[in-house]
């Protein structure tokens, strides 16, 4: 009897809170189908995932939630879910009625039912992330606070003295946006002047799930892509320059590729992602091994953001591989700096004792000093915009490299 009662207390009995919640949920379950407001909607699986799952909800309209915005009742809805354990945080997105919606009022534990308030995203922002070389797009709810309609007078043209408030989900992409970021919304430029990102979700998850951007009307710039609504796109021209010392090699040959990411013609310290086709393997550092057979062509791809570059190595059955190898390989020297290198002649993997001669393409900018035993010191006398060619020779074997004499900063 005691065991039976203990089992009852542990497994069947409910606390008053559990009973109340259970009864409330049972009522909702019983009435769930008894409404014309029931519909299927798509719910983001978790904040920022971009993956949507179907879920049932009772969808109702509500009045607008703040003043000084353009009032449209079809922009605000409340969603009630069947289970009172269906927790939804602020900032989660939904899709229904051919629109995306943002949760601004999440579920909370004080209510016996799970209900959220959502706001329709009436536009979207597109921006170019210059660090990642990616174009991002995010739906937003755009309201406008018009103070005085007096135009703001600046030196060039008069712009509207109005503030636009954007509400967007706080996710990995949008949290990277900084002040002074410009957006072009339907051909109209805006500048982000301030943002509210301090309404943390909780003390455990201390990122803000919902961000408010305060933007002012701005003037067009020549670097804007007005047609595609991307601000300052033409200001950042990335390109990838792959340095590949081999155009033909034998199978199982290993070497290293290097890729320089140039921004507006200047080398950056960003790194690419490497991929290869089925005739080679390559790791994140550009170290590759040819795995194909003679006649195959190994193709390597370097990616950074939306730019890619490719290079290839033809796999041959044999190769007369006498070459000059430079260690370490140098690509730039800062103004006033020196680099020590060694240049030796190799036949495949065998180092030969042949003497190598090195000359600088412009001794007014870069000098070469021989230290004996094929050891050299390259000195940058001053920076130069154009690349300098350094030539290594041993008889008929010539290797040229181009180095950048970069300024100190």
């Amino acid at each position, binding site marked *: 009897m005691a065991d039976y009662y203990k089992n009852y207390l542990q497994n069947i009995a409910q606390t008053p809170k559990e009973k109340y919640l259970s009864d409330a949920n049972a009522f909702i379950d019983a009435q769930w189908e008894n409404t014309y407001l029931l519909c299927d909607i798509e719910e983001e699986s978790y904040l920022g995932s971009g993956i949507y799952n179907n879920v049932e909800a009772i969808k109702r309209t509500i009045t607008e939630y703040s003043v000084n915005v353009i009032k449209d009742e079809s922009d605000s809805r409340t969603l009630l879910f069947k289970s009172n354990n269906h927790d939804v945080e602020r900032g989660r997105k939904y899709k229904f009625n051919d629109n995306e919606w943002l949760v601004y009022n999440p579920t909370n534990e004080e209510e016996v039912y799970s209900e959220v308030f959502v706001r329709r995203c009436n536009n979207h922002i597109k921006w170019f992330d210059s660090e990642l070389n990616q174009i991002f797009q995010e739906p937003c709810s755009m309201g406008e606070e018009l103070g005085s309609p007096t135009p703001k007078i600046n030196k060039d043209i008069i712009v509207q003295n109005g503030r636009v408030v954007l509400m967007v989900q706080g996710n990995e992409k949008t949290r990277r946006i*900084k*002040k*002074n970021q410009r957006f072009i919304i339907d051909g109209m430029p805006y500048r982000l002047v301030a943002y509210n990102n301090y309404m943390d979700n909780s003390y455990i998850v201390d990122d803000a799930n919902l961000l408010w951007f305060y933007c002012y009307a701005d003037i067009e710039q020549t670097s804007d892509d007005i047609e595609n609504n991307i601000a300052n796109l033409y200001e950042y021209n990335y390109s990838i320059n792959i340095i590949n010392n081999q155009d033909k090699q034998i199978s199982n040959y290993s070497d290293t590729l290097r890729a320089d990411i140039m921004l507006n013609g200047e080398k950056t310290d960003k790194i690419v992602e490497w991929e290869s086709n089925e005739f080679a393997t390559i790791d994140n550092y550009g170290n590759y091994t040819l795995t194909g057979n003679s006649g195959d062509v190994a193709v390597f791809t370097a990616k950074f953001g939306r730019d890619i570059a490719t290079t290839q190595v033809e796999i041959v059955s044999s190769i007369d591989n006498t070459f000059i190898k430079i260690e370490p390989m140098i690509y730039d020297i*800062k*103004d*006033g*700096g020196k680099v020590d290198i060694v240049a030796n002649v190799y036949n495949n993997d065998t180092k030969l004792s042949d003497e190598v001669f090195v000359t600088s393409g412009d001794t007014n900018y870069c000098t070469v000093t021989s230290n004996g035993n094929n050891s050299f010191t390259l000195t940058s006398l001053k920076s130069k915009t154009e690349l300098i060619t350094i030539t290594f020779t041993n008889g008929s074997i010539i290797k040229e490299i181009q180095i950048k004499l970069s300024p*100190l*900063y």
Partner: protein
Amino acid sequence: MFCSNEETFNKFKNTPTIPYKILKTLARNEDAEDIFKIIKYPTYDCLSKPNLTLDEKMDLISKNNESLDDFNIFFTDIVNTINYENKTILKINEWDTIPTDRYHATLTYKFDILIGTNIPTIEYMGVPCNRCSVLKSMLIDNLNGKNVDTVGYLEFNRQLSVSCKSLGGVGNSQEFTGISFVLATNLVNIG
């Protein structure tokens, strides 16, 4: 009497690079390590800190950045959006150009050293000293008489230019204060 043709007139096309050369002179000089330590470290014992690497020195320099709070060295005299509280700022900019005749000109460069209110003192030669004074003395020591690719040297010399002097009390009396000084050099660049 000289013939009047293009080659006998002074040329100024390289003068914009002089502030860069000034900074290069400091960055590549082992005797100037303390200058960058004073700029970077906002502490009383900044001179006891380790030397900066070349990259760390260059990271102090602003290069058209939108957020100025991450930088300490500027090539402009307008730095109005910065928070001075625990910062040491060095501004280098062209001051005046006096063409003495068609071949010669005297160029001057102004150095502004600004500090916030919380970091006025550092330990120097074993005693507490004003941060701005120490930095000024080190800059003048390391630049006075140095060649920055002009004719002659960069000089703290009133005979070369009456603009050469040092002036204290540069600040807004509330958030930051500092010292400014002017160095001069000759320019003869014909042909």
